[in-house]
């Protein structure tokens, strides 16, 4: 575990929808170069946590600090330009844009040529376009040959399910973030694919230097790649620590296997 200033610090976070508290008094720190997984039964507030960090739901109380400054009151696009990018539980690509365009558009907040550059076709505009394209191809190349070559100019709608998930990660990478939030990155993949993606998550940290927080239900992925596991239950932090410790924690076992949760799971899933 790294020390010093945390990259992301969540302090006493409350998120409430009407009377329902989806996240309740949560305290989390994520350090640079860390891979943190967030687990918990359905309805534990995992996705709400992500939505709160990326400013897609309003925060009721508490604070979210990124690199020491608060993210509260920012719009989602400002959060992204601060350096936090995310994927979605139900893949949300721009399906009618090409694969290359999907990663090019994600660099919007990292580039700045506006209407004038485009109209006068300035040198700065052209070199920036070339840069955007190059970075996009580089990001796509991370996933092997699946998303490049003749696929570059095909609309995202032709992609298979697993490749859509990969493209979504590529799109998040293209925003040049410091922290990646992946919402169930291997959901719906077969064991071979999820094993490969698990390795890729490791490489994302090692080669690209991202800190990564991901939500996952697949315990083998969690075990293989996370430095630290955070367990949420009913919007509260149940425990956190190494996978080995957490998985043996009786409270975690109870949260997953406990009477009421089994019934809840049966209803919600």
């Amino acid at each position, binding site marked *: 575990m790294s020390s010093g200033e945390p990259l992301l610090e969540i302090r006493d976070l409350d998120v409430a*929808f*009407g009377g329902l508290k989806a996240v309740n008094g949560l305290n989390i720190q994520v350090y640079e170069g860390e891979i943190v997984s967030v687990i918990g039964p359905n309805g534990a507030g995992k996705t709400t946590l992500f939505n709160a960090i990326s*400013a897609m739901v*309003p*925060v*009721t109380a508490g*604070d979210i600090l990124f690199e020491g400054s*608060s993210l*509260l*009151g*920012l*719009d989602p696009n*400002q959060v992204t330009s601060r350096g936090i990018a995310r994927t979605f539980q139900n893949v949300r690509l721009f399906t009618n844009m090409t694969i290359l365009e999907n990663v090019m558009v994600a660099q919007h907040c990292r580039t700045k040529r506006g209407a004038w550059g485009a109209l006068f076709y300035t040198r700065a505009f052209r070199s920036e376009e070339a840069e955007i394209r190059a970075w996009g191809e580089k990001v796509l190349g991370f996933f092997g040959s699946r998303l490049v070559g003749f696929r570059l100019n095909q609309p995202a709608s032709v992609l298979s399910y697993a490749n859509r998930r990969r493209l979504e990660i590529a799109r998040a990478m293209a925003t040049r973030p410091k922290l990646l939030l992946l919402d169930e990155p291997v959901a719906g993949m077969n064991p071979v694919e999820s094993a490969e993606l698990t390795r890729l998550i490791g490489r994302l940290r090692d080669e690209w230097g991202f800190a990564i927080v991901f939500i996952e239900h697949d315990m083998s992925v969690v075990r293989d790649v996370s430095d630290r596991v955070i367990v949420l239950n009913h919007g509260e932090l149940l425990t956190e620590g190494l996978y080995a410790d957490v998985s043996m924690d009786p409270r975690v076992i109870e949260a997953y296997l406990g009477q009421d949760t089994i019934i809840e799971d049966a209803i919600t899933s």
Partner: protein
Amino acid sequence: MRQGWAPRRTGAPRTGVDQFLTVLRVFAVGLVLIGLAAFIAQEINTDNAFARWANPDATGLTGAQFRGLVVSGIAQGAMYGLIALGYSMVYGVLGFINFAHGEVFMMGAMTGMITSNKLADAGLWESNFIGSLIFIVIVSMIVCTLVAVIMERVAYRPLRGSPRLIPLITSIGVSFFIQNASIVLLGPAAKAYPDVPDWVKDKHTFIQIEGSRILVVVVAAVSMGVLWYLVEHTKGGKAMRAVAEDAEIAALMGINVNRTIVKVFAVGGAMAGLAGILWGILFRSVIHTTGFLPGIKAFSAAVVGGIGHLGGAMAGGLSIGVAESVGPLLILEPLGVSGVSQLRDAVAFAVLIGVLLLRPAGIFGERLPAEDRT
């Protein structure tokens, strides 16, 4: 803290647009308040300094004038409310603005005009006014129901499930078509209703209201009550509410979604037909553009009341009606704007814009299908 509003705290940078909007909100509210204050000042004493400053030529209103404006606003507002029901129900169920609903209303007024003139030719209009009125209401409601149902079948049903702006554009086309069909079939000139009996024109009761306005408000209130009963307490009404909540689930629960949607259009059409007759009673003249402005205002009423909400539509209609009726004289005139009565339509639109700026979900909150709540 209200739901759906991001909390504004800790000196976070807001974008320029937000700051501009805040200025705009403050400006709008300020304008209304100053106008009102000037009006009140002027009512207390036409010669006080504040009123003079605001508008040197201000005269203020007499009590009777003010009452007249409010009553005519309420009568028109009740009519808007009836039209608004159609907008609100269709938006609630299908999630798109049926732009052509105003034209259904216009067809109602036209049907009423044709039928009542025929009745007047036969001498029935004068001899049995109430009977003829009921007759033209029934004919007009039938015609408008048919028009609305055909419209749904021809133009909107094939588009179910397409991107949401597509049916809106289609409905604009339908509206255009109906308006111009009315020109080519019935001619471009304004056409008059036959003369009404004296008791409709005369002023009644101690506050001197014209009979036609009492009639309009009573009819609107009664039909509103009937509709409320239908939607809240019958099986068909429950089906409508279920489809509005989630069409797919409703279909799985054994509700015939298509038939329910047809019913929604039919009920909306019938209400528009009724409103058309009320228009005829109030203004006694109809032209192909009759549907346009009342249509837009009725939609505004639906939004103001909170779309998908029946009582809200009526309340919104009344507020829009009263606002456009008294607003110009109450707020604009004291501020020194001349020729204010020309601006009543502008005031109606301004109310819509203002409500969407200050409270986008309307007074009573929206009831929308799940996927439209973004």
